[in-house]
């Protein structure tokens, strides 16, 4: 009887597990590292125990600390979530030793499925096909050619000792094989010191589809249908759905058959997932691997089957019989999940770190958000970048996609770069809507990478309005009555002379100069000589902006002059500064000589792109300065040679600090 359950994890999955525990009347214990003292999962749990430093190796991967935490709190069950210790047998074994309920499969299943070679061997023995290939010792051309013909072209030649794509060669037809083998051997020898090759079937248009299994300790095992997980980048799943679109019943049956065969072969007794690959053009499914734990994407299965998988997992772990039979499980509608990560998809998925200034999930029918963060949470570099999963359900795939898109548009995540807009572009792509999904989707849909929309002058105007309203509300004229409330009052306003406030509005990519005048949310905005009317009304973290009569809704946060704005699934940070406040910094730089690059504001040297003696051209970015969470590219004002560098990457510099000296050449 589970009374109190310790979740040996963090983030959204810890919160999600605790939600079901609460529903089941089970007390919860969180564990946390020093980096997670204020994390949402700690606040969600009934009790929380510190288990070590920020580095996962000393905390979330620290079996002893976790067992201590369970002892200290009297927890009689441990749920490992996914990742961390979920597929390491050590924690499972310790639980068994100490009589603590391990919410997962028996340790033997973890071990056997944990090995890539062992799991494939078991699969083949159970009659579950793996990707056809040749891994033999005979390396002569004749043996390899024979193997290739048996596998069937096209094939892929790989270096046995290789990895990471090096030494890989696709061969479309038999005539090209001999030449390709020679080249591949040479590359393998050069690259890895071993000319041995292996051959695999080349899957032209791979789809990644997995089957959810659920078993109990009494020999019952069912499948809970499939999930499509083909939308990936760098082997990271981005969007998953159930059921898989455009999948024939024959293949579906083959998937279920293979998955349950494997599950039975190992006596699987918990929740688990069998992953397959298949070719969209035909071929497969072939077994890839089995995950002996709860999956990130489990909510899509919950939506279409109506089951609470975590509850199921806890009940069977506690020895209960599986409460469902295969016949009783059906699929209704479609559910699609998108994983919103703290990363910049426009910059090689560079991780984004720092404070989430506003986190406001959408409020939509049929939409569920699983998250481990909230407004004010800080994303640290220690763990994965998953901010939230947003799962949309619909009676059909069209409705589910539309809801997911609308929810991604409504979701407000400000202050940190996220993949939100990128995900929305994927979901809105006609190819996605048509269900033409392969693991090559991202590369083929965005061949030059995804760029997002460029900065928009309208959004800069909106940022100025938010700034103005905030500035008015925090007038620096206390005890002065109307001097603080009349805005930029001018006697001559009706005669055309308003009290203009000159602003610099900066985004990471550019800075615009504009002016704003008016009061109490009714402004005129002047940019490049064009005056537009700008009205703003705010309600909490929502701002309604009217720009020359075009009304739009934004989510916003203002902090220390930086305005974070979100609209329509996009978010951006705007540094709004009255020009008077930066007056002099440019002049000081000019006075020091055009060759000096100085800090326009206090900040952190994020990138130093030059070394002493290097030649630079006018306009080259020599420094990237991170200030107010924005990245400012500081260009060379002259062409010449770098004579001196006054800073190093990582330095914090004051406004006006000289950074780099460039001497004109010639």
């Amino acid at each position, binding site marked *: 009887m589970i009374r109190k359950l310790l979740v040996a994890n963090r983030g959204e999955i810890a919160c999600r597990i605790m939600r079901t525990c609460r529903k089941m009347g089970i007390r919860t214990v969180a564990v946390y590292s020093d980096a997670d003292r204020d994390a949402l999962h700690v606040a969600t749990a009934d009790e929380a125990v510190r288990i070590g430093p920020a580095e996962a190796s000393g905390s979330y991967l620290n079996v002893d600390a976790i067992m201590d935490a369970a002892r200290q709190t009297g927890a009689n069950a441990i749920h490992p979530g996914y990742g961390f210790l979920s597929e390491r047998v050590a924690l499972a074994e310790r639980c068994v030793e100490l009589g603590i309920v391990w919410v997962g499969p028996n340790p033997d299943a973890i071990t056997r499925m944990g090995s890539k070679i062992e799991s494939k061997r078991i699969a083949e023995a159970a009659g579950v096909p793996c990707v056809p290939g040749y891994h033999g010792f005979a390396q002569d051309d004749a043996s390899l050619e024979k193997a290739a013909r048996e596998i069937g072209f096209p094939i892929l030649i790989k270096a046995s000792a290789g990895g990471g794509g090096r030494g890989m060669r696709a061969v479309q037809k038999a005539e090209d094989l001999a030449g390709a083998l020679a080249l591949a051997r040479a590359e393998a020898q050069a690259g890895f010191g071993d000319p041995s090759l292996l051959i695999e079937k080349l899957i032209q248009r791979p789809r990644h589809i997995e089957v959810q299994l659920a078993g109990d300790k009494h020999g019952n095992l069912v499948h809970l249908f499939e999930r499509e997980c083909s939308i990936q980048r760098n082997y990271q799943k981005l969007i998953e759905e159930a059921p898989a679109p455009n999948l024939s019943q024959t293949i579906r049956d083959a998937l279920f058959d293979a998955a349950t065969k494997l599950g039975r072969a190992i006596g699987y007794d918990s929740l688990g997932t069998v992953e397959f690959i298949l070719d969209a053009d035909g071929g497969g499914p072939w077994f890839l691997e089995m995950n002996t734990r709860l999956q990130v994407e489990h909510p899509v299965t919950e939506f279409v089957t109506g089951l609470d998988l975590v509850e199921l997992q806890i009940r069977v772990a506690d020895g209960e019989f599986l409460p469902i039979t295969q016949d009783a499980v059906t699929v209704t509608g479609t559910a699609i999940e998108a994983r919103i990560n703290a990363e910049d998809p426009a910059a090689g998925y560079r991780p984004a770190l720092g404070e989430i200034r506003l986190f406001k999930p959408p409020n939509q029918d049929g939409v569920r958000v699983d998250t481990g963060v909230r407004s004010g949470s800080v994303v640290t570099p220690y763990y994965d970048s998953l901010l939230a999963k947003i799962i949309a359900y619909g009676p059909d795939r069209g409705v589910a996609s539309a809801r997911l898109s609308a929810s991604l548009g409504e979701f407000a995540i400000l202050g940190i770069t996220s993949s939100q807009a990128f995900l929305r572009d994927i979901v809105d792509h006609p190819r996605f809507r048509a269900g033409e999904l392969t693991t090559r989707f991202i590369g083929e849909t965005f061949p030059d990478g995804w760029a997002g929309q460029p900065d928009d002058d309208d959004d800069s105007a909106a940022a100025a309005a938010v700034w*103005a309203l905030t*500035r*008015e509300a925090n*007038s*620096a*004229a*206390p*005890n*002065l*009555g*109307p*001097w*603080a*409330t*009349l*805005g*930029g*009052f*001018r*006697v*001559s306003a*009706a*005669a*055309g*002379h308003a*009290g*203009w*406030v*000159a602003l610099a509005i900066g985004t990471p990519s550019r800075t615009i100069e504009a002016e704003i005048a008016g*009061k109490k949310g009714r402004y005129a905005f002047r940019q490049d000589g064009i005056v537009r009317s700008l009205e703003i009304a705010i309600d909490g973290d929502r701002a309604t902006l009217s720009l020359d009569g075009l009304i739009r809704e934004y989510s916003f946060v203002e902090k220390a002059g930086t305005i974070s704005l979100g609209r329509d699934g996009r978010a951006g940070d705007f540094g709004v500064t*009255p*020009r*008077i*406040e930066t*007056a*002099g910094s440019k*002049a*000081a730089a*000019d*006075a020091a000589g055009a060759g000096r690059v100085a800090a326009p504001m206090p900040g952190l040297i994020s990138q130093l792109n030059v070394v002493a003696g290097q030649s630079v051209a006018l306009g080259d970015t020599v420094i990237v300065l991170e200030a107010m969470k924005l990245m400012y590219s500081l260009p060379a004002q002259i062409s010449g040679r770098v004579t001196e560098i006054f800073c190093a990457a990582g330095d914090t510099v004051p406004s006006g600090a000289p950074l780099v000296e460039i001497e004109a050449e010639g």
Partner: protein
Amino acid sequence: MPSPTLPVLPTRIVTQAAGFRANREQYQALLDRLRDSLRYAVAGGGEAHVKRHHKRGKMLVRDRIDLLVDPFTPFLELSPLAAWGMYDNEVPGAGVVTGIAIIQGVPCMIIANDATVKGGSFFHETVKKHVRAQEIARENRLPCIYLVDCGGAYLPEQDRVFPDKGHFGSTFYNQCKLSADGIPQISAVFGGCTAGGAYIPALSDEVVMVRGNARIHLGGPSIVAAAINEVVDGETLGGAEMHSRVSGVSDYLAEDEPSALKKLRDIIGGLNIERPNHAATRPARPPLYDAEEIAGIIEANPKNPYDVREVIARMVDGSEFQEFKPDWGSEMVCGTAYLHGYPVGIIGNNGPIFSESAVKGAHFIELCDQRNVPLLFLQNITGFMVGTDAERGGIAKHSAKLVYAVAAARVPRFTVIIGGSYGAGNYGMCGRGFEPRFLFSWPNSRIATMSPDIATNVLLELRRTSVKRDAASDDELVELERRTRAQFTEQSDPYYATARLWDDGIIEPAQTRDILGLVLALAAAEPPTTGRSHVYRM
């Protein structure tokens, strides 16, 4: 605790009425004229001069001010139509912009030359405006910020600029005295300051100079060449770098104008000035009725009276007005109200002042003086009552009580001329001679000893009864009547008045509440006057 409320003034205005609409239409023409005039004045010396100014890397005077002041705070510009209609209307604003603004949270008086207007040189009205700004600074303890860009006295007018009290010398005298009284005097120099002009920065507590354009020298290169036969360029002689690094005349060298303005802000930020609020303020509330309606309330024909309460109802918080002695001396409307949250005692006119209304006014002033409530006079007065009954009733004595009370009141006083300002009524209602803190006029106002009609009658009568001259011919009388009428009409026009600094500017009725709120807020920083204050019932 909820704020106590005062009785709400009712309104009898019907905006659909033909009379209201006709009045409003006529008033719109007055507003259009005002806005056109301001537009002309704000344009400074005109396109060619503005272009040349910009070409020198200089900002326009109001752009400097916009950049200098705290974002989204008011700039209460004073007398923007000074010198209007004078010197062929070629000296808009008298070549200087003055006004009150918030800089780093501190209310300051800005005195800024407009170099696009005759090189920013000083005319008679320029010094008058300059001295008036310093006077306001003294009364309200406002640091003076001089944005200097001027060429000294306008020589053809030197007799009206240089020698007398209230002329150029007074500006320097004031600077010294204000500074000595603890009111900071700070200058930023944007252009050449020769001779007299040099003393504005030189007498300042701190000085910023802009590299390239700013010059300070007692004698410029041509005078130096003539006087001592030395050939030198202006930059070497009196440039910003020399003065900041060699002579020490300047305390800060700014690389450009925005940097100089930023430096002024830095200096003001460190002035150690805090302004307490001594008034018993309440949360500000707008009036219940629209101030734009005042344009339809004021009768197009000045001979038709209107109820000043309709104006008050569109000016004070919540249109609430505690009227004093409403059933006695009703030609004079007195009462207390709040305006932008500040308490104020208001005196307005509903007709000429009789003995009763005069002593009622004096009584009310005593009340406000006792209670430390500032006074606001809304002038619309043809004068004190004349005639046998009035004289036998002692109007001269009773009106003197009012005038005395106005003069002797210790609380801050403010005046807006919302209609006529004639004769001794001007005194009894705190005209310029009685030194109210601020005096503004509406575009429909008239100010003179008497109206053109009466003046014509008086002068014709004097001519007819003249003992020095022969009997006047009809032609002569007709000509006299024409001349008198023309003179009084021209000179009682508010533009004639504002051009000569008889007021602090013509303002629109709908702006009046806000402007009065601004000046009341300044006065509220002063501690209440103490000592005995008597309320003699009269």
